[in-house]
């Protein structure tokens, strides 16, 4: 039995690696996507374009503007001299933020009275606007602290000291890149498994396999193991790239990480083989994989937190293996999550894997024609 399975695995690899097109599917898109996601997919803002409309010739205003200019998060564009210029500057997206300092600013401050500055934001992209607002707020808080100290004012009765654990500089890349390990492993494993049976059906070789003494479970294993191996290689490649190229810290143990990868691959292969045993043509296999992949990725917490979704959608994500894997990846990479904490993520994936594989096996036997 194992000899037959081994022959099938060997054949599967030869077929995959000899074909120019499938070789490309295994190597090309993962690298392109790793680069594109690694560099382009980021919520971090740097050099947010801002414009200053300063009506106050005083020293305080100059200091505040200097603080904005000194921040790496902001980049100043042409100044505004009239009220009427504010709207076009925002409309044209020349600036995302306009800092408006009124004529009484310095005078009020020196009198010891609170002075206000106005920040006008382009809210079209609400996320960007919120983050830019936070940056502005931090600059003003720091300005206030300095001003209070310099002018002998009493500080506010309580102040915030903030620390971010696991990602002290709050870099989006640290969040996104470990997620890519899951994303690309899923995509490649799905394409390899979802198309494998369909391709043989289309070429007529599947019949040839079925009339050999191989049992369905042997064929299933012969199809699943290459997917597992390719998934492991792919995951390893991206992990190495993440650590060496993108400099993402890998704090947790590799053993815990690979335990997660193995269980995740089990569930991904299960879904892939299920699609494969339903699809008659490669076209259908591809469409099925696409229809699974898009919601699986979007509803996994890869780019946007699951917690922000409506409750019913959150419940729906419970059947998405990718969701659990995202937690494991980020937990092990950044938080150094120990194995016991991974267990709540592992068993649902294992359950999904066993259920889909069993279903795929059943479909194999009952959809042989």
């Amino acid at each position: 039995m194992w000899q037959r399975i081994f022959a099938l695995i060997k054949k599967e690899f030869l077929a995959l690696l000899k074909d120019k097109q499938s070789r490309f599917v295994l190597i090309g898109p993962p690298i392109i996507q790793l680069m594109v996601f690694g560099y382009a997919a980021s919520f971090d803002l740097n050099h947010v374009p801002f414009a200053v409309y300063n009506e106050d010739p005083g020293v305080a205003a100059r200091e505040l503007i200097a603080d904005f200019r000194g921040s790496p998060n902001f980049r100043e564009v042409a100044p505004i001299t009239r009220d009427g210029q504010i709207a076009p500057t925002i409309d044209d997206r020349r600036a995302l933020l306009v800092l408006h300092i009124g004529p009484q600013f310095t005078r009020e401050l020196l009198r010891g009275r609170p002075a206000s500055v106005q920040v006008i934001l382009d809210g079209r992209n609400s996320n960007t606007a919120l983050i830019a607002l936070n940056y502005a707020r931090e600059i003003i808080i720091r300005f206030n602290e300095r001003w209070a100290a310099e002018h002998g004012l009493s500080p506010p009765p309580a102040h915030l000291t903030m620390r971010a654990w696991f990602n002290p500089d709050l870099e989006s890349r640290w969040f996104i890149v470990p997620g890519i390990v899951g994303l690309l492993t899923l995509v490649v494993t799905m394409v390899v498994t979802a198309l494998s049976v369909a391709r043989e059906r289309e070429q007529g070789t599947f019949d040839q396999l079925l009339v050999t003494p191989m049992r369905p479970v042997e064929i299933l294993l012969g199809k699943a193991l290459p997917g597992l191996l390719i998934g492991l290689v792919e995951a390893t490649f991206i992990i190495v790239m993440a650590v060496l190229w993108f400099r993402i810290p890998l704090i947790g143990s590799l053993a815990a990480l690979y335990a997660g990868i193995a269980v995740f691959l089990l569930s991904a292969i299960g879904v892939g083989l299920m699609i494969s045993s339903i699809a008659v043509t490669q076209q259908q296999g591809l469409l099925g994989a696409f229809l699974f992949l898009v919601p699986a990725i979007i509803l996994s917490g890869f780019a946007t937190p699951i917690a922000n979704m409506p409750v019913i959608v959150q419940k729906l994500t419970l059947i998405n293996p990718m969701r659990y894997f995202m937690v494991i990846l980020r937990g092990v990479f950044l938080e150094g999550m120990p194995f016991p904490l991974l267990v709540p993520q592992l068993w649902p994936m294992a359950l999904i894997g066993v259920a889909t594989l069993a279903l795929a096996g059943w479909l194999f036997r009952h959809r042989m024609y």
Partner: protein
Amino acid sequence: MTAPATAPDGDGGGTDVVLAFRDVDKTFRSGNRTVPALRGASLEVRRGRVTGLIGPDGAGKTTLMRITAGLLVPDAGTVTVLGMDAARDSLAVQAALGYMPQRFGLYEDLTVQENLDLYARLQGVSDADRAPRYAELTRMTGLGAFTARLAGHLSGGMKQKLGLACTLVRPPRLLLLDEPTVGVDPVSRRELWAIVYRLVREQGMSVLLSTAYLDEAERCDDVILIHEGRVFGHGPPQRFTEPMGGRTYAVSVPEAMKKRTLQERLADAPGVVDAVIQGEHVRLVLQEGEVPEAGRLLPGLDGIAIEPVAPRFEDSFIATLHEGAGEAAPARSAAPIAAAAPGADGTVIAVHGLQRRFGDFYAVRNLSFDVHRGEVFGLLGANGAGKSTTFRMLCGLLPPSGGELRVAGVDLRTAAAEARARIGYMSQKFSLYGNLSVGENLAFFASAYGLRGRRRRERIDWALAGFELAAVRAAPSGELPLGFKQRLALACALMHEPQILFLDEPTSGVDPLARRAFWRRINTLAEAGVTVLVTTHFMEEAEYCDRLVIMAAGEILALGTPREIKARAHAAGHAEPTMEDAFIRLIEAHERAAEAAA
């Protein structure tokens, strides 16, 4: 005919030529290899005649058609269509000719009427002209009752006729038909020829028609024989068959001897170019100058009758390939494999009341037959007759909806894996892993059948040697010529020395030489006691079977030896009916019975 390519006599002058190729070369690139499709092809097609473009698969027929239609540009040489240059004035050429590509170019999700409408608009047939034209076309093709049906739901024969109707919606001056008779049953083939001749007779149309069926050559006014991109001969069919006069004979021996055995022996006899079973005889083609001498051909046999028969096109084709192209004679068949143990009563495959339903459509209904050990058993029928469905049920690939079925005493669908180790299976399209090499395919199937160690090595060596595959061992099997693929597929199916061999259309698309070699191998296997079940739509191949069933619309029309089946047509007045005559007669009788019942 052994002469090299020559232009036909210019009896009608230059104006009479509607299509002329002059030294046309065409090469395709596939990966980093170049594949020559046409090599120095020169030919002429004359007005008002049906010219057949005859050659095996991959000979360059489709390339030639496409160059004529302006879809491809030749690398060298000139092509003149109706006085215009095909490459330069392709739009004008396309406005003047009609072209039916392979698979007929139909939109399967449009109805018959919608297909006609589309092509009428594309051909610029005005609204006023359409109605009478449609009426004429549907009458000619018999599609009148089906105008609202989706083209995809038509039978192969009706699709072919619709394809033709779409091409004829505006009568072209030159009609190009690319393999119009592939995958179409003999009845539809006959009807197509009738339509083509009517067009030529009534409208003076010129027709260029390509085909891989050699027997169709004799229906053409002119024949262009093409092989491996070269024009081998050009002229009326008689010009090909005449030189074969005195070289063709029918050999018959007393009943006791199997025809297959006789054919085997004759094929190896000295001076023999070709030996095929035809009816009750073996048809013999001798080398030029050879004399048919019973003692020399079949030493030690008595009661041999050798009679001269009229040559036919296929004889000259085989002779041309033998002599002109220097093709080697079909090799002696592969080494025989170990004989299988006989069953209790010799019955290996038993089918009783087999049924298969798809929705409310019966693909197979009430099928019963037995196959004995060492028998070559044929399943014949047109596309859609249900023979592939039957075949798949026998192999355990498809569960039957009703009835019983036993292969070597078990139902393969539910049988233990070990039972499947006793059968060999070769599917329709020679399904192999195209991007794996020949050696890798063999190694994989050897392992899949559970062979290991020394035996595995021995069998792989046996396959490489016995099927002449050693030279292409490292080549990707997908890029091999069809004949090699067929041999490789057979080798894979025989890897584990099966007792029963299932062959699904094993010779479709393969050239006549490869077909002959293939059948010799099958004969050897049958002699060794292997039971062979084979499907085919080549009627003449039925002669190789010990017994066969003819199927139509999922039912058995006839069951018996080839002689018994032909005897039915014989009664109706044919002197010596071919299997195709018998088939057509059976179908017609069946349809009449169905009409009477309705």
